[in-house]
């Protein structure tokens, strides 16, 4: 039994079928990278895993427990599965500290003082202790994204989903976010990330999955996917990435 098991997952929006039978396994402490062209279903898959989108077929299991379909307590699931978005989605009317403490206080019922102490610890870790009282629009994109990661971590998730979290950042701000992910990976955080940062994927991933037209077209260790891809589509995709100078 894998930590996260995705079995033949389909997702349709009306006529459009975005996911056409995804199969994927993620073990604890693994970092799994989803790569593929825009629109191949990476983000949709991540949103399905923590219930932001309902799937149209198949099933997803977390620690053997089915987390899709009727009767699932999504609020409870989401305490275990955190997600970080491409566009940060911080709450603009709250300070950094309030962003990070809102869910622990309201969802987990942790007393405010304790939640704030923990949040300050997280902020210290991401190097933004001094910005605790700042509002999101006073921060740079990289800082906002690190706060968004801290906000997800404050719930102590067992699985962290990261949806192209560096795509909206200026190039010089990407590294500060990737460094944080490296630390998390080194600490054994289980992560599933959709990304266009191929060298990063190559460096930290336990497994890389190439999504093509709504299915996992090829998967394997990063050395294989990047060094010796077996499938024609994978090779074509990677050669375009290399052409663009991204690998």
């Amino acid at each position: 039994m894998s930590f996260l098991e995705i079995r033949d997952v389909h997702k349709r929006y009306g006529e459009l079928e975005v996911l056409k039978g995804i199969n994927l396994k993620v073990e604890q402490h693994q970092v799994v990278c989803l790569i593929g062209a825009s629109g191949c279903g990476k983000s949709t898959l991540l949103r399905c895993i923590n219930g932001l989108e309902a799937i149209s077929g198949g099933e997803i299991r977390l620690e053997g427990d089915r987390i899709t379909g009727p009767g699932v307590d999504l609020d409870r699931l989401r305490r275990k599965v955190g997600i970080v978005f491409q566009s940060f989605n911080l709450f603009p009317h709250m300070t950094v500290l309030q962003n990070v403490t809102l869910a622990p206080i309201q969802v987990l019922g942790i007393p405010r003082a304790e939640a704030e102490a923990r949040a300050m610890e997280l902020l210290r870790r991401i190097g933004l202790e001094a910005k605790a009282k700042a509002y999101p629009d006073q921060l740079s994109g990289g800082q906002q994204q690190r706060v968004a990661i801290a906000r997800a971590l404050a719930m102590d998730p067992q699985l962290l989903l990261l949806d192209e979290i560096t795509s909206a950042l200026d190039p010089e701000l990407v590294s500060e976010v990737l460094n944080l992910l490296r630390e998390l990976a080194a600490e054994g955080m289980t992560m599933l990330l959709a990304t266009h940062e191929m060298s990063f994927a190559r460096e930290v991933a336990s497994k890389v999955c190439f999504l093509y037209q709504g299915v996992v077209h090829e998967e394997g260790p990063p050395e294989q996917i990047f060094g010796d891809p077996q499938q024609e589509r994978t090779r074509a995709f990677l050669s375009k990435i290399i052409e663009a100078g991204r690998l």
Partner: protein
Amino acid sequence: MNPIDPKQGRSSAPSIPKDPTSLVLWALAVCALVVLLAWSVLLNLYRILERNHLAGVGVEVLLVLVGLLPLLLLVPVWRGLRNAGQARAALAVKDLITTRVKATEAREWAQYAIGYGAAVLLVFLSVQFLLANDGAVGSTFFRLELIRDSFGLVLGAFWKNVWMFCVAEVLILVWGLVIAVARMIPGRAGQPIRFLATVYTDAFRGLPTIISIYLIALGLPLANVPVVRDWRPEWLAILALTMSYGAYVAEVYRAGLDSIHPSQWSAARSLGLSFSQTLRFVIIPQAVRRIIPPLLNDFIALQKDTALVNVVGVIDGFNQAKIIASNKFNLSAVTTVAILFMIITIPQTRLVDRLLEQEKRRTRG
């Protein structure tokens, strides 16, 4: 592409500007006309004041001073003439740049004079309107001693309007939000609630406020509805206003809630916050900031509509003024209440504009 021949491609000489003189002369004519008209209006005013034994040295000095004001229009006209002359002189010596600059300045001064002339004209025409019929128009609306004598009474009754809209606004803020949230309740279980809320907003937005006041404030006691039948008409009117404006404000809230980007819902729900927690901590606080301007607009409309309660016999500012008006056969007391309404609403209107301007700057920056 062929290279442009600098000799043929475009003319290097600046074009000769149009002569501004005729425009400036037009400005002179307009301003002269305005001055003459202003003087004739003031003369008319003086005659009426004299007939009513209100003329005195002070009044005469004041009228003369007011009469001098339109002469200021001649300043821009004079500048226009001077610049037009300079433009012609420069053209004579083929100094095209200076010609252009001076001609433009002359035109600007002439337009300036015409613009202000038109404004002054409108002011004096409205004074003339009040003086029409030997001052009958003016005295119908602005009989000063009547305004003075009735002011206390009208102001006292006007407090009832202020009190009613203050109470109603608090109730509407709560009620509107309840309806707006009811229209958003998700799922199949929420369907009947959503339907009822929609029916309510449609009904009360389609119903003229004056009719809903009439039906509720007269109808409920007439139908002997328990509890409500013992309410004073003021409270019934407040109930009617709340029902009516609650529907509008619910729509304002709903637009505000809808305007929050879905990614905020995703972010909040993904952290494990429930639907109601998301509304309470994330969506409503952000929406409220955005809806303050349209909300204030609705409240300004509500404040004015408190004057409608006179249809059920509540003695508010307008009703009191109407009583005085019919006793004295003169509308000056109604003018008082009209001015009172403007005094309280105009600052709010300005505030709305300021807030909208701020919001625009914020979202642009």
